[in-house]
């Protein structure tokens, strides 16, 4: 293995879980996710000589993965471009199930631990464009600006997608709590 190969692998390994969980939540199934990750990593490997040392390898390889996934789904790419901006970004005011959501907020760690599978299902059921922005921001911690650059969309669109995704997830969490009633037993 050459020094460059060793460097590439050492930079890649810390990102393996992040790349996987992102692709697995964006793709049709695990096979498609694996194909996309493998293709993205091989593209990154091929272009590694243009990667600037000292800059974020994570952001660079994620950008390649995002492009790979978008290329695999042209419909998703088209939908990224045409989004009506959210009228405002009042996450609290947007919620329709305020009372049940208060129960979620009473002890979010406990609630999430108890509805772990449902949360994963709720994330996968988000519209793909909202899901992609939500995963990049809330789970992988990329800045709005980085997401806008990776997806080639305006920052306002990033914020609209993110706002809608969060509002949907909060509504879903509130629904789970209201339907199960378990938050009533949750210590506050």
């Amino acid at each position, binding site marked *: 293995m050459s020094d460059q190969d060793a460097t590439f692998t050492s930079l890649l390994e810390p990102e393996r879980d992040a790349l996987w969980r992102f692709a697995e939540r964006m793709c049709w199934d695990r*096979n498609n996710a694996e194909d996309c990750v493998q293709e993205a990593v091989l593209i990154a*490997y091929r272009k590694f000589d243009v990667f600037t040392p000292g800059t974020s390898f994570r952001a660079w390889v994620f950008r390649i993965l995002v492009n790979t996934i978008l290329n695999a789904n042209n419909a998703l790419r088209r939908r990224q471009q045409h989004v009506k901006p959210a009228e405002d970004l009042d996450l609290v005011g947007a919620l329709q199930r305020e009372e049940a959501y208060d129960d979620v907020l009473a002890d*979010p*760690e406990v609630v999430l631990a108890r509805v*772990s599978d449902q949360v994963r299902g709720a994330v996968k059921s988000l519209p793909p464009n909202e899901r992609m922005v939500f995963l990049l921001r809330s789970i992988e911690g990329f800045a709005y600006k980085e997401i806008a650059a990776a997806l080639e969309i305006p920052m306002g669109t990033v914020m609209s997608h993110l706002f809608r995704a969060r509002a949907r997830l909060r509504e879903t969490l509130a629904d789970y709590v209201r339907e199960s009633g378990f938050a009533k037993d949750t210590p506050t």
Partner: protein
Amino acid sequence: MTNLTCTQARALLMAWLDSELDATTTVSVGEHLASCDTCAERFEREGRLEHALAAELRRDAMPDDVWRRLLGALDQRGADAGPTPTARPSTANTWRWVAAAAALIAAVVLALQQPGEPVGPELRRNLLVDAADAWRAVRDGALPPLSDPAEVAQLLGRLGFADVELPEPGRLGGHPVRLLGARQEVLQGLRAVHLSYTCCDVPTSVFLVSEVDLATLPLAARPPAVRSALTAAEVDGLQARTITAGDVWVGVLGERHMTLAEFWQP
């Protein structure tokens, strides 16, 4: 500094959670939170929710076998600059196999019918079961991708159709089949491979769907044809194992060709 109202502060909650506010606005929000217990509590709890959500969703790790295959592909790439190696059948091949398998199985099932006879609910259900099983077999890696007639014969044997005569182009299972098209369709996040063909002149649409949450689409709201197919599936207790998120739903509607939207929505 600006004195924010509760409404103004709430509108900044999302950017605050994401540390995307500029320094001046961050100070303004901080001042408001220092003077408003209600907002302070709300922001703190929203922050905890975001943190907990991220922690929960970051727990999923890349399986070791996927990582090994990835490293293997990198090694191979380093060794020669040839085509991208894949240790596992690609998704495209898988879909091609599923499409072919579904068409073949449809032909096999329909071969029990007299030419021209309409497809009854029993046959539809059988086709649904067989195609779903075929899909699962492919997905789980129990069957390789379709490549040549000998493999097809072998695979059909494994599926319990050992005596089936291999089809010639345009004639599957001894009956005239005309494949009208196979395309990917997307509907509100629902993605399907749509096979459209006629067998014995019966128009048939098959939808191979993954990542479906049937619970989001109430049965009563379905078109009658879809409802009857679903009901037939439920009779055999198939709904739980066949129509679940991440699994496949194969719908066969013998009346006419449909779009995914028609199939899925009233």
